């Protein structure tokens, strides 16, 4: 059996007219929510910018570019037919005879070293005991030679200067 339409409307109206119970603390919560500062927006742009910078650095590699662009390859040669070993020692290898041993072909000893711009003192150590300056390079003059054994000088300039 169906209710009469007017009775249904009356019941709905009564329901709508009933006072709604509101939590007394609602006002305080609303005001607190309004007053609370919003968390910073999580923008994607800073991350994108950082990623772009990182990719640029990886591609450009400025840390290696400066050294690669400015350093130069130098070949050091000493004619010493009687020598059994020759080492190149200097400011560029901590004066360590083991760092730059030279190879020989028919008494011509040679090695290649990569040098960054700068002024370097160096010498040849023949047979582990005899010091020789490079006959093809400027020699360290006496006022600058404190150790009484010959040394030479090589100066590497910048490519762009």
């Amino acid at each position: 059996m169906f209710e009469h339409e007017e009775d249904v409307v009356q019941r709905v109206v009564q329901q709508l007219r009933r006072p709604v119970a509101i939590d007394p603390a609602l006002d305080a919560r609303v005001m607190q929510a309004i007053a609370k500062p919003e968390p910073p927006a999580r923008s994607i742009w800073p991350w994108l910018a950082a990623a772009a910078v990182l990719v640029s650095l990886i591609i450009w590699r400025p840390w290696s570019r400066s050294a690669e662009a400015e350093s130069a390859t130098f070949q050091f040669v000493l004619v010493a037919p009687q020598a059994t070993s020759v080492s190149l020692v200097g400011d560029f290898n901590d004066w360590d005879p083991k760092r730059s041993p030279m190879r020989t072909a028919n008494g011509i000893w040679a090695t290649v070293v990569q040098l960054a711009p700068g002024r370097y003192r160096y010498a040849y150590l023949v047979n582990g005991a005899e010091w020789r300056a490079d006959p093809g390079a400027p020699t360290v003059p006496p006022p600058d030679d404190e150790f009484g054994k010959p040394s030479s000088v090589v100066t590497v300039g910048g490519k762009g200067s």
Partner: protein
Amino acid sequence: MMLALLLVAAQVGTDPRLDRLDPDTRAQVATVMDSASRVGLPTEPLIQRALEGATKAAPGARIVAAVRRLSADLGVARTALGTEASVPELEAGVAALRAGAKPQVLANLRSVRRHPLTMALSVLADLVANGVPLDSAAAAVLALAPKARDADLVEFRRAVERDIALGAPPGAATSVRVNVGATDVFAGLHNPGAPPPPPRRP
């Protein structure tokens, strides 16, 4: 006991490469390096000078004296070249000073040359070492410095050395190369499209 403690304290923070020095020398070198570092001077040249002495089996006192002298000269070079001078510039400046150049020459070079001064100062020192009178060498380098590239300066030095080897008086060889040969000497050095050069010779 106190001396031992001082030595140990001095060794704290010492570059491990200096282990090739005997303990007493190492401590003294470390003291010099510490002093240099406090006033902002580079310590790597001091390390290299100490290592050179060690490899050449020099007495410890001579190594310490060499390092101390280099530290002092680096300070003079920096005063002349300015606090922005690079380590290679300071080292080349020391070479020029030891060749007899006055600090004012270094300062003048700084004022006329836009590029780094390492090569200019080095060429000055090398010319003097080859017998060129200091005044002639300084005048030549000052004349070339404003426009010459580093490669030009190297070629200039080699040209003067060749002339001297052929019997020319060093001063005259320098003057001739500056006044007459500059354009000829420097011609053809700059070719951006050229293939990579073979290894250079010092």
